[in-house]
């Protein structure tokens, strides 16, 4: 899944917050995003294995209207990573991104244990309630 212009390629490293008996874990995600009037569509893949994880929907809104630098914006990205739905939001400034994410797994799926669809397996599968940081840049 090479990302070709006019789509934007963003590479973001996620680091989960450590929890008791669950150490911090990192993952490289590569987003290929089409941004049209603030609406984001695209897909996300594991940057190391190259496996596509899911489609992406989101928004990007300039923070200029709040009196902040025109080059900064608020970006939200909603996607799936294995059984988890991930909501990530943060600030972009020029080509850099810094944000936070939360993962949700449906109770029914969580009860079945770690389940992932064929072809979407990832070395790191977030659990329900996982939170963490996402840091990266447009690459």
């Amino acid at each position, binding site marked *: 899944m*090479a990302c070709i212009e006019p789509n934007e390629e963003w590479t973001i490293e996620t680091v989960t917050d450590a929890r008791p008996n669950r150490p911090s874990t990192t993952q*490289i995600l590569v987003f290929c995003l089409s941004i049209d009037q603030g609406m984001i569509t695209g897909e996300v893949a594991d940057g190391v294995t190259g496996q596509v994880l899911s489609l992406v929907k989101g928004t990007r809104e300039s923070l200029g209207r709040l009196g902040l630098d025109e080059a900064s914006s608020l970006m939200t990205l909603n996607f799936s990573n294995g059984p988890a739905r991930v909501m990530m939001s943060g600030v972009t400034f020029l080509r850099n991104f810094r944000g936070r994410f939360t993962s949700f797994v449906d109770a029914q799926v969580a009860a079945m244990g770690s389940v992932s669809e064929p072809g979407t397996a990832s070395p790191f599968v977030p659990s329900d309630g996982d939170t963490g940081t996402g840091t*990266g840049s447009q690459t």
Partner: protein
Amino acid sequence: MITTTSAQLEAEKPTIKILLYTDDPQIAPTNDAGQFFGLGSMIERLQAHAPTFANIETKWVSRNSDAAHHADNKLETILSNEEFDEIWFFGMHQSNTDKFSLIARRGGPESELNPNEITALTKWMKVREDGCGGGGVLMTGDHSNETPRNVVLGSNSLCEDTSAGASFLGLGRALGRCVPRAGSLRRWEGPPTYHAADSLSTIFNGGFQTDRNPQRLLLRHVNADGDPDPDGHPHPLFFYKDGEFIEVFPDHAHEGAVVTPPETAPLDPHMWPVGVRPHVVAFGRDVRRDEPLNIIATYNGDLAGVGRIVADSTWHHYMNLNLEGFPHPANDGSPSDQIGQFYANLAVWLAPQCKRQEMARAMLWELARFTLLLEEGVDAESTGATAHSVLKKVSSPCEIHELSYAYTPRPVAELYAQQESVSQLPSKELLLGSVLKAYQSAMIGPETQGSAAEAVSVRSMIDVGFERAFRQHVDQVRKTLDDLNSAG
């Protein structure tokens, strides 16, 4: 007063000091999460593959310390305050601009090297009368972006600015373009850009630059001096294990362009002294194009009394982002291990000749002591063979090759560079063994004879060793001829 002979031959391993020079604090020597444009991962790998006979010391300096300080670290000052053997350039900025910023239009009024810096670099890259100096340069950059709207054309008397009207300027151009010789080995104006139509992509198999799949290199064969030679071997930069070569590299979707003077065109003698040419030694592949891409070019300044140069198509080959898919440390033979070995080979190959000779002295001293204990009474060729087998265990093929090249007298090296004559010459084992025997004789003689130590030099021991090796070889050839004559 003359110290003991051993003390005169003793040599400690030197330190290769590398300046990692950038103009953007973003290209930091760290590997923190999300710090994709950092160099931390490369530095770790370089140290993990450090040569046996030298320490590696890197120092990272940004021309602009931070957003509040523009050009507060100029090369002229850096080079006058501290000695470096190599400079690895990782420039980001494209040109001088009217106002300093590390934000939207990165650059400032002093982004480009000024005449004093070019003069300082020229001097630093030249071999001094004492045979030292001749600093090595790694020149990188990346694809071209749109020319900054607030560009200020350079007015440098030592480096003409030919970019007027150019709509795209290369990333890294501001630092790179005026570096003597090295600056001319990359295209800084016009394509390739990041646009699909005129980009150069080495992304392997439609994946990502972060994935586990590296690009595959096509290695050009060269002779001992680094000139193209179909009967030679891949360039020493790509030596991996014995008889194996580094054939993978990190990949990237928008590489820059490495260029060399046309092979048949006359060279500008002011830029390229003594007619020594730079050559492309490694190519990559863009699946959309028929022609291979230039990835690495080398210039063997040893032959011209100046420092060596390596030009690379992009600094992405050194960045955390592009190394993500290659966990380190890694098994022998893995892409990660090969890439790490390349960084170490680069440090060794770019080291000034004088530094490589220091390394060679450390190597010969260690080998002479080691084989003295093990090999008493055996002939020189056996001693050399033992030494070679020890070297193969403790050192990389590139280091062995470069140190052998460093201590071999030039006329002898020229003989060996002529491939067809190698079989008529003494074996490399005999040469090394004879040098080690000369060392050992000098070490033992005064002690066993109870006489005072004489003044000796490493150079004289090496010359004696080579002379004995050739004499022994002549004797052997003569004896063989006599035997054949008498048999006939």
